[in-house]
């Protein structure tokens, strides 16, 4: 199969011209960022007063990193560079201590994001002949709406099914002859297991492609999904701070994900020292969005660990690629595609006096899906002797946790002293899911 391009000129631009375009857009982005309260202060402290202060990529190090914590502190309007009248959408992500982060989009921002998603889908050979069933969550989570807009722009017939309700997903796939789906890898494995239960066989479906993202997975899992369904599976990378999906995407070569470098400037740094790492070294991905009007974000520490592949891709695109995400440089955990910080769970437990402060987060697989168990200890003074009160407490905790982390947890009540006391955060999370990050 030969490569299909959405915008051949920019996708195959020679490195020299691509880098010149990046530098020019980086300068414009800095000027745009200087319109925000946060960067006006942050950049002037760093001695960057205009985009022109960046003469070459060597000057990029003058620009301070931006962290998730910065975004939280800037909530709600600290990173907004345009008048709210010009904003047509916002996405927020839940925060670790109750403060969310917000990313705003102008009409042009949305159009450019959709264009990158259309480009990504086209790079896998998708076209207007495809029927695209989008099994990602719609709403504040960017995974659903992001690829939805890109798929429409490409001209695919889009079925916005959203996540969950497997019997209905399968009915839709059968009725409308869905050829491409977008889901988490664990959901696709789950979906496969349900085909037979719904009285269907693979031959009732017309699936040829799947786009997987939102949670880390191994090459082995990709191959497994490919062989189970008899389809091609493409890896997708994005994060809401950088729009969402469409930051980096695999092409038909299926060897790492092209970062759309006309729109993002990618660096790899050592998460400990924050020193830039040379080609081929694994470290934390740092991204700058190069074309955003409403929410310019410079040198954002994604906390995702990967490596930049410098070599030429067989597809002919000149945009460098990143390897599948190897892990995180913070303690964020991903459960069925949903990002969760242990501190969110801790904050909920702290608000409930009937349980102690010691807890453990236990992750395992139930069939193909992730299961999150929160183990807590009952506070002795809160025990009334009534069994029913304990069941109520458990349900109360489940409800509070669900509204904070957006995932239904299993809640276990234990006796005080039963759970290991840990001083470090990492020990509080026990991850028994195999395959999660292994390459």
């Amino acid at each position, binding site marked *: 199969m030969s490569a299909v391009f959405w915008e051949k000129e920019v996708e195959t631009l020679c490195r020299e011209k691509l880098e010149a375009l990046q530098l020019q857009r980086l300068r414009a982005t800095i000027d745009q960022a200087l319109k925000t309260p946060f960067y006006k202060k942050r950049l002037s402290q760093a001695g960057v007063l205009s985009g022109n202060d960046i003469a070459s990529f060597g000057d990029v190090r003058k620009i301070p990193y931006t962290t998730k914590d910065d975004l939280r502190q800037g909530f709600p309007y600290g990173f907004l560079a345009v008048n709210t009248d010009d904003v047509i959408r916002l996405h927020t992500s839940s925060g670790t201590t109750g403060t969310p982060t917000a990313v705003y989009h102008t009409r042009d921002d949305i159009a450019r994001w959709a264009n990158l998603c259309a480009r990504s889908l086209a790079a896998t050979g998708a076209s207007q002949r495809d029927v695209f069933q989008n099994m990602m969550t719609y709403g504040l989570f960017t995974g659903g709406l992001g690829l939805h807009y890109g798929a429409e722009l490409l001209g695919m017939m889009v079925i916005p099914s959203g996540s969950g309700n497997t019997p209905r997903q399968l009915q839709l796939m059968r009725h409308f002859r869905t050829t491409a789906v977008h889901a988490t890898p664990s959901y696709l494995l789950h979906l496969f297991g349900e085909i037979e239960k719904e009285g269907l066989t693979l031959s009732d479906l017309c699936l040829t492609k799947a786009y997987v993202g939102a949670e880390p997975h191994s090459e082995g899992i990709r191959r497994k999904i490919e062989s189970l369904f008899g389809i091609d599976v493409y890896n997708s990378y994005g994060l809401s701070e950088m729009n969402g999906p469409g930051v980096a995407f695999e092409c038909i070569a299926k060897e790492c994900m092209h970062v759309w470098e006309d729109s993002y400037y990618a660096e790899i740094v050592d998460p400990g020292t924050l020193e830039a790492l040379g080609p081929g070294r694994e470290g934390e991905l740092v991204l700058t969005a190069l074309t955003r009007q409403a929410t310019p974000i410079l040198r954002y520490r994604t906390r995702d660990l990967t490596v930049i592949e410098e070599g030429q891709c067989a597809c002919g695109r000149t945009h460098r690629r990143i390897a599948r995400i190897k892990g995180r440089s913070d303690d964020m955990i991903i459960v069925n595609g949903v990002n969760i910080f242990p501190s969110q769970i801790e904050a909920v437990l702290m608000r409930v006096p009937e349980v102690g402060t010691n807890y453990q987060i236990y992750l395992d697989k139930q069939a193909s899906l992730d299961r999150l168990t929160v183990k807590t200890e009952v506070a002795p003074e809160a025990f*009334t*002797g*009534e069994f029913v009160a*304990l069941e109520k407490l458990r349900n109360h905790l489940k409800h509070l946790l669900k509204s904070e982390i957006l995932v239904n947890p299993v809640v276990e009540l*234990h*006796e005080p002293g039963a759970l290991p006391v840990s001083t470090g955060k990492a020990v509080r999370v026990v991850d028994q899911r195999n395959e999660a990050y292994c390459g």
Partner: protein
Amino acid sequence: MKIMQISIFLENRKGRLHEVTSLLGNNKINIRALNIAETGDFGVMRLVVDKPQEALALLKSKNFVASTTDIVAIEVADKPGGLAEVLKTITDNNVNIEYMYGFVEKRSDQALLVFRFDNADNAVAALKQNGIKIVTESEIKSL
């Protein structure tokens, strides 16, 4: 007329019940009635013992999560319809039973049952009025 029940929160772990019972046994506390309400990962063990105050202090000193609940112990004729008769009185007086269980032993031709009522005072009054024997704490001790 109410007697003290000891409730212990126990996680579902091998040997945990044995730990409770051997602690009580080693300290010469006798279990008169026992019941366990459980779900997958934890349970509540309910005990009527001969020396409740002593048992509670002992359990707490060993870091068991324990507390006390007022319950009513009733003598029921050990014959067909014996329990139904008692329950009728309770129902007629609009009292609800949260849970109930039987004693380990019985005396003569009477069975002993333990009730947790939503309104123990009303229940006791109604039972007495209907001539149903309520067992006192000292009677339990001397069983």
